[in-house]
């Protein structure tokens, strides 16, 4: 009995993180918050959508709105396909996709090792990142899917407003 209790406490202190890449940076999302990883896919662009929307992909009979993580970071869009992570939105009632360059392995880290965002970060990164882990190879930025929800991004207004151009007669 005592043994299992000890393990439970131990488990509660660790996080299983799925690592992902975008540009030169390394990021991590907790595996329990990821529903599924769709291999290489290229989302279908939605005209007139906000810049940070990568597009839509079909997923289990629904249309998944996908956020382009590169654009959120202020990087260039990539032409080729990327990896789409399916993440929960608002207590698992809905989900959205996150387009990244690639998905790496799963690492287990101590929850206590998570440090708050450095104060020197700019406002956009502050809004996106949820803290950092110091890894042997460099920093891994912890991401909270709730901060990346399309609806929240739209509300914050921080990320490139929709590309609206009135319909003109000129060709």
């Amino acid at each position, binding site marked *: 009995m005592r043994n299992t209790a000890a393990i439970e406490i131990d488990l509660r202190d660790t996080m299983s993180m799925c690592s992902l890449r975008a540009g030169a940076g390394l990021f991590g999302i907790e595996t329990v918050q990821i529903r599924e990883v769709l291999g290489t896919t290229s989302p*279908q*662009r*939605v*005209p*007139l*959508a*906000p810049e940070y*929307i990568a597009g*839509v*992909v*079909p997923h289990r*009979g*629904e*249309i998944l*709105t996908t956020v382009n993580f590169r654009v959120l970071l202020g990087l260039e869009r990539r032409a080729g396909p990327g990896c789409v992570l399916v993440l929960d939105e608002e207590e698992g009632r*809905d989900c*959205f996709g996150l387009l990244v360059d690639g998905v790496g392995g799963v690492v287990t880290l101590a929850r206590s090792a998570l440090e708050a965002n450095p104060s020197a970060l700019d406002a956009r990164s502050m809004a996106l990142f949820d803290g950092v882990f110091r890894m042997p190879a460099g920093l891994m930025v912890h991401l909270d899917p709730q901060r990346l929800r*399309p*609806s929240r*991004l*739209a509300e914050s207004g921080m990320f490139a407003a*929709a*590309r609206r*151009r009135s*319909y*003109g*007669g000129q*060709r």
Partner: protein
Amino acid sequence: MDELTKEFVAESQEGLERMELCLTDLEKRPGDVELVSEIFRTVHTIKGTTGFLRFRRLEKLAHAGEGLLAALRDGKIIATSELIGALLELMDGLRAILHLIETTGIEGARSTDDDRELIALMVDLKAGSAEAAVNGKSAPPMHDVELLALAAGRDASRAALLSAAALAPAPILTATQDRTLRIDVEVLNRMMNQVGELVLTRNQILQSSPDAQNFPELARRLNNVTAELRQSVMQARMQPVGHLFGKFPRMVRDLGRTCGRQVRIEFEGQETGLDKSLLEAVRDPLTHAVRNAVDHGIEPPDVRMLAGKPVEGVVRLRAFHQSGSVVIEVIDDGAGISTEQVLAKALERGLATPEQAASMTQREALQMLFVPGFSTARKVTNISGRGVGLDVVRANVEQVGGSVELESHLESGTTVRMRVPLTLAIVPALVVRSGGQSFALPQNALVELVYMARRDAESQIERIGASELYRLRDSLLPLVWLDRLLDLEQSAGTELQGFYIAVLESEDRRFGLVVDDLKPPEEIVVKSLSAVLREIGLFSGATVLGNGTLALILDVAEAGARAGVRPAVEAVKVVEATAKLEAAGRVGQAQIAMATSVVIYETWKRGFGEDRRGARMAMPLSAVERIESVPIAEIEYAGGRPVLQYGGELLPIEDEDEVLLEMAAANKPGDAGPAATILICLRSGEHASKRVGVVVRRVVGVSPGTLLAATAEVCAEPLAMVKDRVTTLHRDFVGQSAPPALQEVA
């Protein structure tokens, strides 16, 4: 909220809905013991369960109601209309608390959540009548003042409630109905069977390779199972329209009182099934139509009496299936709509010119009522007549792919007819390509398709200011480039041989959408978009196409609006200005007026001698809906006359030339046989809106022609000048070819 509470809320709400019906019935048959027992049971069940679930407030109110109902059941008091009013209020009270429980999980403890007044009213009614029963006529008016005060307060709040309800139908009703659904176990079992079948088929497909011999067979089976499953699910989603009608007796009763009308409501076809989502969509328009019927349709009792009608007016709700859609009619036997008044109003508002008004048919005039901001009510009441009437009804119904028609006869009443598709989930659509992406256009908005070669574009597209127009037969069609509208990467235009113009019409906006290419039409499964993408406003959903890629579904009306296309009626003035420009130019107006387009076809019967084989006839293009090629085996005979099953309709076939007989004679038995060319035409005149199929030997082409006037001396048949040859027009279809005003010019 736990399961038990959820179930309780759903059940109680259903019970209250039944109670509502019973109460309105009770008013007509005050002595019906069965009805009283039914109402008593509902309230009793609510009271019993709330005690158990510890909803004290609800229990108290239900208890008070139960006491009153018990007295009623035991015959101690009688069902006066005051009592029924009180019971209806009790029901509203219970419903409000249930709604609170459903949304918040608790029954509300704020000071505004107070039922004391209502409970006092129940007790007073019960006690008052008990005392009256005991003391005979001399009921002690001890609490009369109090009661009066209460009643006054009630009326005020009631009036406020009514006017609020008139503007926005109570959301309380829709809440649970969105989430729970009763399904026949039969249907559910069948679905389970079909899912089993689907799994088996999948297993077989997984185990075989695409080049296996039985692969086509497996694919066919998969197709069958999918179709069956789809049908079952659709059936499960079907709800009887009666669910929607349930709330109207009460509404009509209350409205009748406020407007001083005596109205009875009747139902027909309550069992007609309609998809659940659509049922919700037509709820508001239907409410609006019924409200209009009571407030504006039915006359006050004295007027009715003078007109020799029964004092009590009738509003009839009728639902039925017709060729793949559901029709819901709201019929009243009121005063009807005066066409003169409509036209006068249209002139006053500048919605039509006097010339247009003079030439309008009754039907066209009534269509004016759907123009935004149009209201004929001389008096604005708080129930209807704010000018947010029929245009809203139409917008709502069109949003779900339906249509609204109005029919009215002065003195004898008005009919509002709404036509909605059976389901929203799967719609036929045309897939187009633009800027390297696919988009789906709902077929119901599509009028026709025009191909334009790149080299003709310069000469055929005309420019007025910034807008580009294409002259489509007699009208000028504003053009909207899809790639420009959506800010897509410009399709490498010069490489393309040409482009397509999809002529679209929705919410009175008619325009040509220019796209790069067309793909075959598909039945698409509509999926909703997330909130962020819905906000763009131009897309009503997305779908996965047969080839696995995604396509966005274009909201046609919105696309037109964004590009600055005006609705037809507003556009009238612009078109007039254009017409004047043209008149000043090379073409005289009279000539435009006479010009019409015809479909030329070959017929042998009308020719003579050697020329017999080449004889031609023409049919006004406006009368032709489609040209179909039908294998003669599909043509059936009923009573010796050929008929065709066409889109769920039985079409009579006209075969003057006896082409069918010839074909059948040349055909070997057992063969599907050659195909006959049939023009699907819409008849005019007294057979208005009846379709008929006309068999022709061969369609020669479509060409502009000129109607010849005063041909009676030459020939009994109407004639037209087509390509410098005199051609006989099919006489049954000429009436509609030229608008009435133009015939006068002739």
